[in-house]
């Protein structure tokens, strides 16, 4: 019986739909088609997601067009909706979080990949993975009750005393606002930067380090001038991944940003992000246009993270396939 099956298989299978149906009689083809259908469901769900976002934002897209992105007004009562304050808030909080998280994460990744003994490095990486698993609403909870008060009494006044001459650090400090949201986001994305950068740094060939050390470089010089440049594409990939996370993060930001659709130069001012406005106003959106505008914001958020994730993946794969070094 098995020989017959093998001989069957050795003959090249005839093409065409009828032959395909004939082959279905073997269990293998049934299993193949069955798993294929489930895999196709993923494709279907994702296309459906894009489709639903597109269709349900139809009203808003038709009414506001490209002006949606340049209008500062968000007025549910008169039905005027502009995305600019939310796009601004999303970008500002994400940039603030990266300014904090990138140096911190890169330094920690360098320590774990270059200095720490393998065992210590693995256990710290393990703990950092756990940190990445903490639900975002928990970060929000700590944000409201811990970070906001500290911001109001300690960090805020300190920053004002030292850097208060900069326009971004002027104006009243309420505790909630862009800076607070950026700090909470930084804590949330730093584990991603560390674990991806560490992996990428570990793929840098040992000879690179040895050559630099043999030329008389110090440990830091070999790391900073040889290892990090070698891995830089992958490190940029990790930063893009972190940025994509920060853009889409909802709960923690909603709880500490102050939820005020204004564009302010000061980082102490309260603001709003795309994800936060969807979270806050979706259930109370009265009228189809209001809902449609919120869904269009969702579409914008989707496209932003889609592009960033794609770029991140390309960069990380490029580095791991043998060095992003020119």
């Amino acid at each position, binding site marked *: 019986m098995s020989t017959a099956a093998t001989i069957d298989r050795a003959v090249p299978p005839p093409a065409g739909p009828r032959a395909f149906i004939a082959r279905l009689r073997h269990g293998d083809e049934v299993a193949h088609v069955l798993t294929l259908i489930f895999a196709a469901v993923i494709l279907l769900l994702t296309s*459906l997601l894009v489709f639903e*976002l597109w269709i349900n934002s139809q009203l808003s897209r038709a009414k506001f067009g490209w002006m949606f992105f340049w209008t500062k007004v968000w007025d549910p009562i008169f039905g005027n909706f502009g995305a600019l304050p939310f796009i601004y808030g999303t970008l500002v909080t994400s940039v603030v979080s990266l300014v904090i998280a990138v140096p911190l994460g890169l330094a920690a990744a360098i320590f774990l990949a270059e200095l720490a003994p393998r065992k210590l490095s693995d256990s710290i990486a393990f703990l950092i993975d756990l940190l990445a698993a903490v639900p975002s609403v928990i970060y929000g909870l700590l944000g409201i009750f811990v970070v906001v008060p500290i911001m109001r009494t300690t960090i805020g006044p300190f920053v004002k005393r030292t850097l208060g001459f900069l326009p971004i650090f002027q104006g009243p400090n309420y505790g909630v606002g862009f800076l607070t949201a950026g700090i909470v986001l930084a804590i949330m994305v730093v584990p991603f930067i560390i674990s991806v950068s560490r992996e990428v740094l570990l793929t840098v060939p040992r000879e690179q380090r040895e050559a630099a050390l043999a030329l008389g470089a110090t440990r830091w010089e070999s790391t900073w001038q040889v290892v990090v440049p070698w891995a830089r594409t992958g490190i940029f990939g990790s930063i893009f991944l972190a940025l994509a996370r920060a853009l889409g993060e909802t709960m923690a930001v909603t709880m500490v940003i102050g939820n005020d659709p204004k564009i302010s130069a000061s980082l102490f001012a309260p603001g709003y992000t795309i994800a936060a406005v969807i979270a806050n106003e979706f259930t109370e959106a009265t009228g189809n246009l209001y809902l449609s505008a919120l869904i269009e914001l969702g579409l914008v958020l989707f496209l932003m993270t889609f592009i960033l994730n794609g770029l991140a993946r390309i960069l990380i794969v490029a580095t791991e396939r043998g060095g992003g070094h020119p």
Partner: protein
Amino acid sequence: MNSFRLHWRKSLNLVMLTLTGVAAFAVVSVLFLILGYLVYNGGKSLNWDFFTKLPKPVGETGGGMANAIIGSLKLLFLAALMGLPIGLMAGVYLAEFGGKTFSFIIRYTTDLLNGVPSIVIGIFAYSLVVLPVKHFSALAGGVALGVMVIPITVRSTEEFLRAVPGSMREGAMALGASKWRTIATVVLPAASGGIVTGMLLSLARVAGETAPLLFTAFSNRYWSPGWEQPVASLPVMIYTYAIAPYDDWHRQAWAAGLILLGLVLVANLGCRLVLSRWGASRSA
């Protein structure tokens, strides 16, 4: 001049290397700060009522979150029911059957789906389930979480199936088993430990999701029998209670936070320990 430069380079070396160590320990200490804070604040306010009582009406102190605990379990059950089979089968397809182009497309789509912000998944489930029937339901929340379970399950299933040595497949085929029999009776059982752990990890991840539930499962201050009513869940309760102006609600938010974090961390810890003993994967 030269010795000064050498001195400077050596000091820079020392300073920068120390700073990297400080950064690593600072990040790790955040984990312990979070844990410590929740255990301190949550432990103080955790009591038996929390697990057995319904929320009290606004303004009254006391009460618990029994309905939210059951609600979270119901939502996870729905998510598992929907997400795990799709994830498992698609993972089998990618590891065992997939052709080149279509596999690439599926893998790419899976990564894309994994990167979609959870609030957008919420909008998706809303337009799919809530809009047609015009009311929030446990079912809608389950769909939202189920969609989020799929990509993680696919990737971990594929990874563990690929870790099964080819010699086992060849052995089974050599004994005359067809391909699907080989997969069902040899390959899948061999990888089952890893696959199940990967599934648990994906459920642990969605267990803490709040954003996709806000306008799908919504919330409820009472029991919600069946699947077609709005249902409370721990993450949404934490959010609602934390932003409310009542001290007693803050107290309960901490207690709920402790329970949620405890569950998520224990699940993660257990799964990751099992996985590292399996030694198959660092990234699942």
